[in-house]
């Protein structure tokens, strides 16, 4: 697949010495969901603003579909959609009016615009609220409308800056579903997020960014693999040492198993047999089948896979959770860099 976004050695400095983006490079393929994961202040919003022509880069290269984001602004603007962190909708207008206005910004003829707006309202489940002013809308509804408004031009690439920050779980799920749907239809999506779960759920590939630098890049699975293997722990009926020993022997012969731990009996919760493997989920069925065939009764089987949280912790020495909690104290108004 061809690269639709190409960024090479991108720098952005505010004023004299506030470095927001410090020499990042990455490529996004056509049709993929590409994630930028990192805490606030990592340079995510700055990068997305440069790519969407809202900010001028200090140095480096950034092209969208071959067009330079600074030199060919108007060409870039014709093929992108952008949904910002602060929801860019007009509260005095109705949902329908907001979308019609966006249509006229994209020079869509009135007759076409009407149909398009109806379709979009349907997609984001705002048909019933279409003619209500936004003053009465919930955060989730506004975000859905904002997403719809970035889609009026049928963009080739959609940029989403923290699409679910501050949303309730149901609204978050809704946004995730739309993003997945859009991507299935072939839209390339570039999104920034500070949520591990979101990156893991949506992104085909992602960059982990911290302090203006990319600290890791890959598929979520690749990144997780960097910090270690999956662990499967089997617990047996209390103190059934013979079952455990038998299982240990069987497991060590199984293909795909990297290591088998010792049979520790005693306090049931911590003990049990630990199996290390590259691919936990697919090993799980094999293990169950093998045990079943040998007539070994298992009390409990646990699979633990590394999370992106752990990846972030390993790469940067800090956890995202702490940062998220700190950021949550700030008001939602703060404008991203």
């Amino acid at each position, binding site marked *: 697949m061809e690269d639709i976004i190409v960024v090479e050695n991108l720098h952005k400095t505010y004023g004299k010495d506030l470095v927001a983006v410090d020499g990042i490079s990455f490529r996004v393929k056509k049709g993929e969901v590409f994630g930028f994961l990192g805490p606030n202040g990592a340079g995510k919003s700055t990068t997305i603003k440069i790519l*969407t*022509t*809202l900010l*001028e880069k200090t140095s480096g290269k950034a092209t969208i579909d071959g067009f330079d984001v*600074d030199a060919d*602004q*108007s060409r870039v*603007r*014709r093929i*992108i*959609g*952008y949904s*910002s*962190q*602060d*929801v*860019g*909708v*007009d*509260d*005095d*207008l109705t949902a329908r*009016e907001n979308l019609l*206005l*966006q249509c*006229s*910004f*994209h*020079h869509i003829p009135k007759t076409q615009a009407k149909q398009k707006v109806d379709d979009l309202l349907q997609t984001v489940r705002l048909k019933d609220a279409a003619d209500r*002013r936004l003053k009465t809308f919930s955060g989730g509804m506004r975000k859905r409308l904002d997403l719809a*408004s*970035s889609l009026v*031009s049928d963009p080739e690439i959609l940029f989403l800056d923290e699409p679910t920050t501050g949303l309730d779980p149901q609204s978050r799920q809704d946004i995730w579903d739309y993003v997945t749907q859009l991507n299935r239809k072939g839209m390339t999506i570039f999104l920034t997020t500070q949520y591990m779960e979101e990156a893991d759920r949506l992104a085909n590939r992602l960059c982990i960014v911290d302090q203006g630098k990319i600290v890791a890049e890959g598929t979520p699975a690749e990144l997780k693999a960097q910090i270690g293997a999956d662990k499967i722990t089997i617990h047996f009926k209390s103190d059934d040492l013979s079952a455990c020993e038998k299982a240990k022997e069987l497991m060590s012969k199984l293909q795909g198993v990297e290591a088998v731990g010792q049979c520790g009996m005693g306090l049931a919760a911590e003990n049990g047999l630990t199996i290390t493997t590259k691919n936990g989920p697919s090993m799980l069925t094999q293990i169950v089948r093998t045990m079943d065939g040998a007539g070994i009764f298992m009390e409990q089987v646990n699979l633990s896979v590394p999370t992106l949280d752990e990846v972030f912790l390993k790469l940067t020495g800090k956890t995202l959770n702490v940062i998220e909690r700190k950021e949550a104290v700030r008001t939602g*108004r703060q404008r991203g860099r």
Partner: protein
Amino acid sequence: MKMEMLSEIAAIFSRWNTKLVRQPILIFFSLINPLVWFLLFTQAFSAIGNIPTFKLLTGTSSYITFFTAAVVIQTIASSALSAGIGLVNDLDSGFMDKMRVAPISKSSILFGKLFSDAITTVIQVVIILLIGLALGVHIASGVPGALMLLFISAAFGFSWSGISLFVALNTKSSQVTLSVGLLTTFPLLFLSAAVMPLGLLPSWVQQVAKVNPFTYVAQAFQTLIINGFVWQKIEYAFISIIIIGVIALGATILVFRKKIS
């Protein structure tokens, strides 16, 4: 390209008009101050009309008739100088980014807003003129003169708004934008021929008044209200409006393009 820009301006123009219709109270907001002046100041100072030279210089002995021009200017200025507030709100809400990412011209964003503000200004001036008529002010140039007065008002509001837009874009603060509006209007009004005919002003004030655009706009209004069509005064008004417009709006567009691209 030209056609596209027209449709962009039309879209942004109608957006602001819709917002105005939804909150008609905003039309009256900036009218409060001028109205207080119109009703109280003219009563307290009505004796000014009895000064013999006043009639000689202005052609009327009714101070309220003379002062109507000042009230109209004050209305236009306070309306124009709050133009930037809408822009600040758009910057804060993220709506501005939405517009900037769309393939539309920066000037369209500004002109759509300015044309809508001009409508607001005309409505406000009509209200002021109607109140004036009720208070006994007679417009010598009749209906054509009143229309000319409205046209000058719209044009003056259009170019004077440039200052507010410029401040708004540079400070991104509605407080600062509003303060600049409040702090400039009164000194400029009293350092012009709007409140007192030039000949009755102290000589240093006269010097300032001669380079103050308020003077020329006020004199055009005054002649339309008191004397009828005096084209030279109307020309001077338009010349000062154009000069302000080119400077203020030119600077605003430059800043807008730079800040944002």
